[in-house]
Each structure stands twice: as structure tokens, then as C-alpha cells.
């Protein structure tokens, strides 16, 4: 129980693709939208009128390396 395990006692078994796919589709859509809002909304492209999103996320955008303006 207190042993430090250097060599694992199990070998990894792949997670079935069928089990991953629904989550992968749902998750990547949701998360890519999040990245779009952090990185590009009211910058390179714009869905919401105005500059508030751009100005609010201004510093993060610059420091994360997204082309800001």
C-alpha cells in the first residue's frame, strides 16, 4: 500500500472509440466556441456588435498570442 510503484501493474487498454465519440463531438464544439470568444470575437470577426468583448478580453488576447488588432 505504501510502496512506490515504479512499474505499473497494469497495461493500458484503449478506451473504445464509440464511447469517446459523443463526448468528443459535444465537447470540442463547446470548447472551440469558448476559444473563439476568447481569441477572435470582435477582433478578426464579429458576431456581436460593439467592442466590449474585445476590450474586456484585450490583455488576455495579447498575452495568449492571438492577433488582436
Amino acid at each position: 500500500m505504501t510502496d512506490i510503484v515504479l512499474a505499473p501493474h497494469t497495461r493500458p487498454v484503449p478506451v473504445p472509440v464509440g464511447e469517446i465519440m459523443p463526448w468528443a463531438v459535444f465537447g470540442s464544439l463547446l470548447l472551440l466556441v469558448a476559444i473563439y470568444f476568447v481569441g477572435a470575437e470582435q477582433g478578426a470577426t464579429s458576431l456581436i456588435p460593439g467592442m466590449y468583448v474585445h476590450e474586456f478580453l484585450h490583455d488576455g488576447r495579447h498575452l495568449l498570442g492571438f492577433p488582436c488588432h
Partner: protein
Amino acid sequence: MVGNLLLRGMLVGVIAGLLAFGFARVFGEPEIDSAIAFEELMTKTDTPAHAVPHSHGAGGMHTHGEASEAELVSRVTQAGLGLLTGVVVYGAAIGGLFALVFAFAYGRVGQLGARATAALLALGAYVAIVLVPNIKYPANPPAVGNPNTLGSRTELFFLMIVVAVAALTLAVALAQRLRARLGTWNAAIVAGVTFAVFIAIVQYALPSVDEVPNQFSADVLWRFRTASLGIHAVLWTTIGLLFGALTERSMAARFGQPIAARPIGR
């Protein structure tokens, strides 16, 4: 199980984002302030460079200084809550996507356990998503970059990320195929060199962006860009190591085959 991994990845990403925010505050914000001071100086002296502060289209007031009347978001908010929101949301998104790729990679790339898979995956992601794109199209502080080329710069930046991710994925697949013939070390070297040569050719061929104003401090630019790389390093290191540590046990229990009970011939 996968939904659980996704949630765990996002939570780890939030923690990584908080740490990255601390790093950004200390090492990034002073450089942003310097860049904005430069920008304001250029406005005051009315220097006709493309360093002239960006105004986005009609009525798009984009000024950073306290002096400007039509300030949408104060500098304090931009450098505080705004930066925190941006980095933490980005961290959560990156963490979630990381968890999904991890679910695919686990048990499929060599015989690595959860921690080793997560650590190597994070390292690969840092190379493909951050390091390689930043070598060609580095992060720019305020006052650097022509607003008129924003569209093409954004396209090139994302193109570079997509190319690097695809190239690294193919390189890993190549290493897997060569492994039986060349052994793990040599297969990894061949795949790594192939990746590096391919990236070098692509970056040589793609157009360069050359938009730093003449008088802009090279030191501020260097510190800003290394701070940007550092923020991503904090993000990916935290995600790779923490996700692996939190996932090791449950992955071995659910998707691990006891070595002693392994059927003969496999």
C-alpha cells in the same frame, strides 16, 4: 467515463488558468503597460507610422489610456477581471480538449500509463499549438501590428497551428509504424527529424509579418513574447502533470489489464 474525463480536464484547465493568470500578471502586464505608453506617445507626437493607434472601423474607439473619454473598459478591469476571464476560459477549453485527445491516445500510443501519456501529450501540444506557431507568428503587444492586416495575420496564425498539429499527429503515427523495424529510439528520431524538416519548409514558404514600429523597444518586445510563451508553458505543464496525477488510478482501474493476468501471446 469519458464525460468524467472531460469534466476533469476542464477543472484542471481552470486551475492551470489561475496559475497562468498569476504568471501573466507578474511578467506580462508590465510589458503591456510599456507598450501602451509607447502607443500613447506615438499618438501625442502624431507619428505617421502604422504605429498609430488602431481604430476599428466607424466609431470603433480603441484607446487604452486613462485620458481617453470613450473608454469602454478601464485598464484596471482589462488587466484584472478581463485577463482572468480570458486566461481561465481559455485554460478550461484547452483542458477539456486535452482530456478528449487523451482519451483517444491512452493505450493507443505505446504502452504508456496515464501519467506518461498525459505528460507527453501536453508537451506535444505545447510544441504544436504554441512553440511552432509562435516561432513564425509571435505574440504582439499593443502598438505592434497593422490593424489592416489583422484578417490575414489571424488566418496565417491559425493555419500554422492546424499544420503543426496535423504534422505532429502524422509524425507520431510514423514513429509507431517504424517502431517494429527500427526500435523505439530510432523511430522517434526519424519521426522527429521529419517533423522538424517539414515545419522548417512550411515556415520558410509562408509569408512573414514585419509590422513592429521602428522606435518600439526591442527589449519590451522580447519580454512580452517570452512572457506569452511562459503563460502557455504554465498552462500546459499544469494540465499535463495534474491531469495525469488525478487520472492515473481511475484509468488503471477501468482501462488497465493486470499484467500478471495477461493472456499468453499478446
